[in-house]
């Protein structure tokens, strides 16, 4: 069964090719069948492969499939080869499965769009790229998938390309992530030059063998990879593209945030954990970046009034949790959170999409309201998603994974109280903004009429994902609930175990209690502010200082402004100044000189015979003088 591995990315890729070639000749139904069907089949194959992998583990718990050698020169011979271990199994299954649900949802969501085929074409490519990324045997192939998702994010965010705002957002996503990619590719240069290979496993083995902990190479390589990860995963300081990425159709956001793209950074760091182990400083940086980002994003999310932007910042924040986990060497915890996050974030986005679609494209939460009766499925789905996001204790999957991260941030030998505190505060804020969203959108008075109701192709994914969001966490229960953690065992084959501080306070259940507490408190606060005393809140928000603060958070702490002025405007200025080429004057000046010389000389050629004689005479005298006097 494992031999079918290559089919998993090949199916969506084939879907892309078929859709691209036949484009205009395909009807909507055919496009939907090919688009969603290829990913669906891929999910089936992925399940088969996963089952086979678990049921009869290959030797070394690793399966490698070499398709062909990409190229071979100068000692560099990357292969088009796939590498399957426990971690990639999780990723592949989640990507294909959630991807399929999103595709299915899209067949209905996009049905009135003129670029229907094009949409599925890009979506298929997106899934294929992400699969290549997580299955890649070497970093170059990974980079291929890496850039592929970047490209697809651009194509899909700017999918409605008549509106230049969308195009701008897509461009921004591609360019900002590509800045990170540049760091990544430089990291590849470094790794290849030092270790003479790009295949991940030999590379890790080589690094572990050649470089001592804290060596300059390891630090540099890890830092460069982190640069790539930060860009793709929208962490500080390259986070600015993510909120704008909401310009794309909602299923796209779901895909970007849940299954693909933003989690790539998490995958990369987890995959190259050896390097980060060798570079503790960089790993600490990962944790700090994660923590700061998760807090930053929470504040931003609090101030947004575009439903999708709230969710976008929530993603940023949740990825921050994953980074935090990675930073404290909680590799498996990060993957766990990736999985649960994929479920509930896809759910949230798809539910949000249903809301937006029902309201005829309305994004502003303050123009929604009172929808819980009109859109019950969406409402319940949203409740489940928000609860999971807010880590409502015991019943949601988000609780288990996030609690694990919070515990790890303290309990790991690399953890510390500050990280733990940050994570906890983040959890409180998450809970507040998540339920702020729920209350504003679904409670209160209805502001905009519902024009369309979702049908089964949109509802089915919501149900499935709701279920997953609720039960998805039971694969890894915390210590104090008993020792049921098949996921940890499974991932343990691929990722190094966590070194914990012996008898840490973190694992006593107190931390979990606190986590639960802040979640509940958050909901309570949201309820009090938004349901009970909404008018008072409005008054408070209208005062200068809170208002300014809100504006500041709304605009993402002014990062866009800063980057615009530091990077974009100078380049634009230079481009405008240099439009006619700065070097050109040197050459045109030369030509001008020649013409002037011609003018002068031509004037001497005045047609007067006696002048000619005189010139010859002067010439003679000069020559004579030179020869005689020399």
């Amino acid at each position, binding site marked *: 069964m494992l031999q079918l591995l290559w089919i998993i990315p090949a199916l969506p890729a084939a879907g892309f090719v078929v859709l*691209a070639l036949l*484009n*205009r000749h395909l009807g909507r139904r055919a496009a939907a069948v090919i688009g969603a069907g290829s990913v669906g089949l891929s999910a089936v194959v992925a399940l088969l492969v996963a089952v086979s992998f678990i049921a009869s583990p290959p030797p070394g718990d690793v399966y490698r499939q070499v398709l*062909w*050698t*990409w*190229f*071979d*020169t*100068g*000692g*560099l011979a990357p292969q*088009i080869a796939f590498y399957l271990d426990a971690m990639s199994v999780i990723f592949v299954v989640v990507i294909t499965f959630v991807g399929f649900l999103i595709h299915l949802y899209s067949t209905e969501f996009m049905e009135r769009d003129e670029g229907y085929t*094009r949409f599925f074409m890009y979506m298929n490519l997106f899934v294929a790229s992400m699969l290549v990324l997580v299955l890649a045997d070497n970093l*170059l192939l990974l*980079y*291929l998938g*890496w*850039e*592929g998702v970047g*490209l697809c994010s*651009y*194509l899909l965010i*700017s999918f409605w*390309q*008549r*509106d*230049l705002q969308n*195009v*701008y957002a*897509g*461009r921004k996503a*591609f*360019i900002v992530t*590509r*800045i990170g990619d*540049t760091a990544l*590719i*430089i990291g*590849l*240069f*470094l790794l*290849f*030059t030092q270790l*003479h290979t790009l295949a991940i496993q030999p590379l890790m083995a080589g690094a572990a063998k050649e470089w001592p902990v804290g060596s300059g190479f390891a630090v540099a390589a890890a830092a460069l990879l982190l640069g790539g990860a930060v860009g793709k995963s929208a962490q500080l300081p390259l986070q600015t593209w993510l909120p704008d990425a909401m310009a794309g159709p909602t299923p796209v956001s779901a895909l970007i945030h849940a299954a693909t793209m933003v989690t790539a950074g998490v995958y990369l760091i987890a995959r190259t954990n050896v390097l980060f182990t060798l570079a503790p400083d960089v790993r600490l940086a990962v944790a700090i970046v994660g923590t700061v980002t998760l807090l930053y994003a929470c504040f931003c999310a609090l101030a947004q009034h575009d439903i999708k932007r709230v969710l976008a910042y929530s993603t940023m924040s949740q990825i921050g949790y994953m980074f935090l986990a990675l930073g404290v060497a909680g590799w498996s915890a990060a993957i766990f959170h990736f999985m649960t996050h994929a479920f509930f974030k896809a759910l949230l986005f798809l539910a949000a999409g249903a809301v937006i679609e029902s309201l005829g494209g309305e994004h502003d939460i303050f123009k929604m309201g009172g929808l819980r009766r009109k859109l019950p499925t969406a409402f319940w789905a949203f409740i489940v998603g928000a609860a999971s996001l807010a880590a409502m204790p015991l019943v949601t999957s988000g609780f288990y994974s996030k609690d694990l991260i919070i515990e790890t941030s303290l309990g790991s030998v690399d953890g510390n109280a500050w990280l733990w505190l940050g994570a906890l505060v983040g959890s409180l804020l998450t809970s507040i903004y998540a339920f702020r969203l729920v209350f504003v959108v679904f409670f209160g008075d209805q502001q905009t009429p519902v024009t369309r109701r979702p049908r089964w192709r949109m509802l089915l994914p919501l149900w499935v994902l709701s279920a997953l969001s609720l039960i998805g966490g039971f694969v890894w229960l915390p210590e104090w609930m008993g020792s049921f953690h098949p996921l940890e065992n499974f991932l343990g084959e691929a990722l190094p175990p966590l070194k914990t501080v012996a008898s840490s306070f973190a694992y006593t259940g107190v931390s979990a209690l606190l986590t639960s507490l802040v979640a509940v408190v958050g909901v309570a606060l949201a309820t009090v502010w938004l349901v009970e005393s909404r008018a008072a809140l409005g008054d408070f928000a209208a005062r200068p200082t809170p208002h300014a603060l809100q504006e500041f958070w709304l605009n993402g702490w002014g990062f866009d402004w800063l980057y615009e002025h530091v990077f974009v405007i100078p*380049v634009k200025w*230079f*481009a*405008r100044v*240099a*439009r006619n*080429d700065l*070097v*050109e004057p*040197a*050459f045109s000046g030369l030509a001008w000189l020649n013409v002037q010389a011609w003018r002068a000389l031509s004037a001497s050629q005045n047609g007067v015979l006696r002048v000619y004689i005189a010139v010859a005479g002067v010439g003679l005298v000069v020559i004579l003088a030179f020869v005689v006097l020399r």
Partner: protein
Amino acid sequence: MILLWYILIPAVAAPLAWLLSLSRPQAARWVAVAGTSLPLALVTWQWVAQAGALRAAFAAHGPGVAGLVQGTWLADIHAAWISPLGISFFLAEDGLTLIMLVLTFAMGLLAVLASWRGIQERVGFFHFMILWTTAALAGVFLSLDLFLFYFFFEMMLIPMYFVIALWGHEKRVYAAIKFFIFTQASGLLMLIAILALYFIHGRATGTYTFDFTQLLGTQMPSATAFLLMLGFFAAFAVKLPAFPLHTWLPDAHTEAPTAGSVILAGVLIKIGAYGMIRFMVPLFPQAVYDFRTVGMVLAVIGIIYGAVMAYAQRDLKRLVAYTSVSHMGFVLLGIFAWNTLALQGVVLQIVCHALSTGALFILVGTLQDRVHTRDMTKMGGLWAVAPRMGGTAMFFALASLGLPGLGNFVAEFLILVGTWQVSKWAAVLGAVGLVFATVYALWMMQRAFQGEETHALRFNDLVPRETGMYAALIAALVVLGFYPQPLIATVRQTVTSVQQITAGSPLSPKPTSAVQVGIPADRAPAAAAVADGTTTDGGR
């Protein structure tokens, strides 16, 4: 003899096209198709047939024997020409030549096809010029006698000049003369360098010859070698074009008709790279090493400056032209890095840039034929009008920004990773150039194809002839993106041997770091020994 056909077929077809067109203009097109596709078929056949021979040559002589010097050619012709001056008609072909020939004829064919509708005036004369260029280009890549090389090098200027001046756009005469003067001036500087080399070699050995293989390894003072190297560099840097000698290129590319731009971007500017790899570095390795820092700085400036300038343009064609400046910066970088990775990347970049930029020029040409402007401010939203064209443009824009999965990426990656081993900063800045490439490529797409269609332009989408051309180019780029190995294997022999020629200079890494030069570690000592034996250090 097969080598002669590569030059003769287009050279004979050229006047034929003109003469036939006097009675039937359409005939010229078919003659031109035959005159380019016939040698293309021939060289492809040779490639397929001799792929084994190439591998065998590499395996038999392997690393360690300078194939170039030993004369392990796929084919060669050596005949007297102007014997009083020691000039011979010396054509030879190795893997690199083969690739360049494939490129030449393919681009020639493409140029003819791309002009099928666009060129309606003086059809015969046009195809005369295109075929002439093709013949001269084939000659350039085949010549190993420096005089012969210079002869063909100059020869292709005239038809290119005419192509730009006669069928170009608004400022065509200016662009044509600028192109002509830049290339000619720098070419003459190279001629001086060639002659100086000729005399230095002649005085030292008593053999006055322009035969490149004999001139290799001529001993001379390092200052002299440096000056001569600069002479070669001037010519090739203008051709390439390298910053700051690039200003002819935006004008020439912009004003040339589509076919002219295709040949210019596809093949003609590649002569610069080819000349550096084949002649400049092997002749003056030490001098090139001394010049390396400057060269790399120029390359990096070219990459970034070209990209920013591309971004700054309003004229779509000018934008594409500046992207060439940027891409050729990578080529220059790779050449100065001078290790196997970088050189293989350079060759790949040569091919892929020809395909992608050639396609972009054709695209701009078809667009201009339809909307009658190249000004992007007068476009916008064209995707909605012509989605196939939009999709095609998107593809080549992506190729241009070096998207993995397309040949350009492999090329740029190889160049940069090779460069990294020589100069980390150059590689980093080159990689930063990729970000700028993203900026201009997407900016181009946005201004021409995305947004509202504000200008109410209506025109036909691609016709089958065009679709066919693009499909072929797209397929080629994708294949090169996922499996460039055939190309790499073809030029391996050349890449290895040029490096062995320079093995005695600091330019080539020490054989101890075997991995970097592509020599398996266990064979490295043997390679080093042979390399020392064939040391041709001209720069001491």
